[in-house]
């Protein structure tokens, strides 16, 4: 226990880095995932095909391999970055975007087809139909699975600890070495700080769900 208290500065630093990785990757993944979902339901066959290919590859590849690719293969292909955080963000967001695309697509499918037909009938273009009519109604069904994906993202960010990024898990490993006799406490401390992010996310989900309820 005293090891945890003595290491609070390290925990805090790791917590902030985990939060940073999660928030940035989460935002990128939400944007990319929504675009992928839009491509998947678009009338253009090539876009549908690309989206499907991307989603299948990204979500069926182990995250560690995607990290390996981003941190080690990309630099060899000429994509250089100063810090490994960038590689971690690339890996986390490209992996998570695939799951978000699938969640958004299922949400889009949950909106009755008549809604889109009515919107098309008043002369809206594909992007208007999606942006004004379908996606706002899809949000309601999408929020719970989306929050699940974001919670998974927060926990997945721990893989970055194995790729030279000192986030919560990275510090956890380091502190376990420093305090070999108090590993249990050190790891409980790490878990506590993860909960500090994931539990509020769950609460947020409940709140948003009630906010966006639509009567039919």
């Amino acid at each position, binding site marked *: 226990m005293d090891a945890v208290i003595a290491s609070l500065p390290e925990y805090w630093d790791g917590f902030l880095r985990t939060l940073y990785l999660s928030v940035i990757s989460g935002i990128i993944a939400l944007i990319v995932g929504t675009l992928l979902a839009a491509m998947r339901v678009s*009338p253009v066959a090539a876009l549908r095909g690309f989206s499907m290919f991307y989603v299948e590859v990204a979500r069926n590849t182990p995250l560690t391999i995607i990290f390996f690719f981003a941190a080690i293969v990309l630099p060899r292909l000429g994509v250089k970055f100063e810090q490994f955080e960038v590689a971690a963000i690339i890996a986390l967001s490209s992996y998570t975007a695939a799951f978000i695309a699938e969640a958004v697509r299922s949400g889009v499918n949950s909106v*009755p087809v*008549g*809604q889109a*037909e*009515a*919107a*098309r*009938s*008043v*002369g*809206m*273009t*594909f992007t*208007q139909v999606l942006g*004004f*009519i379908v996606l*706002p*109604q899809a949000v309601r069904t999408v929020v719970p699975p989306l929050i699940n994906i974001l919670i998974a993202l927060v926990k997945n960010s721990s893989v970055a600890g194995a790729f030279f990024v000192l986030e919560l898990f990275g510090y956890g490993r380091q502190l376990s070495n420093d305090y070999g006799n108090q590993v249990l406490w050190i790891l409980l401390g790490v878990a506590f700080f993860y909960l500090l992010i994931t539990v509020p996310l769950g609460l947020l989900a409940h709140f948003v769900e009630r906010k966006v309820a*639509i*009567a*039919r």
Partner: protein
Amino acid sequence: MTTQASGDALVSLNGVNKHYGQLHVLKDINLQVKKGEVVVVIGPSGSGKSTLCRAINRLETIDDGDIAIDGKKLPEEGKDLAHLRADVGMVFQSFNLFAHKTILENVTLGPIKVKKVAKGTADKEAMALLERVGVGHQAPKLPAQLSGGQQQRVAIARALAMKPKVMLFDEPTSALDPEMINEVLDVMIQLAKEGMTMIVVTHEMGFARKAADRVVFMADGQIVEDATPEEFFTNPKSTRAKDFLSKLLTH
């Protein structure tokens, strides 16, 4: 105005065919609707009348033949199609009001987003339309708070807000409770009297008698008869139509 493809027809279908797999749902359909004309399409279930109605604004694609609105051929996809659809009002069997928007927003969304009308103007015009169909006082509510008849009247107002050249009605009263059918039909009859060009797929023979200029009878994907209501109801020529009418009249 562009030059018109076939005479003075506002809506013209020439040699239109459509298949659902093996099923031939539209068989060589030829139909011309003039400006201001009210055409009622009737026929037994599965005769292709809804498909015909939906094909006119390309909610259903067709295999061959061509459809033109005001002389312009229906575009394949994209912006051109959206522009053309803005000129064609559509009223659905299941209303399809935007569930997350208020009644007023349902009517103003098209003019604001598609025609780029200023919000103030759109609101004013929408309120006038809602008053006209008798649901002005419901403007701030959500669709789910209205009865079916009220929702369908809002749907008509939403279509009218785009100032369409032609209105399509796809079984507008089939999902309504009997006591609400008349309030919707009254609005449609009024619209017909004002000279709106209308294509109405319906089972309401009373409406066909009262408001139609022509009755088109469809069976098995074909147009079997095309006559005035008077002619059609008193003296149908085909056995198919006679059979259909006799079944209606026995109840």
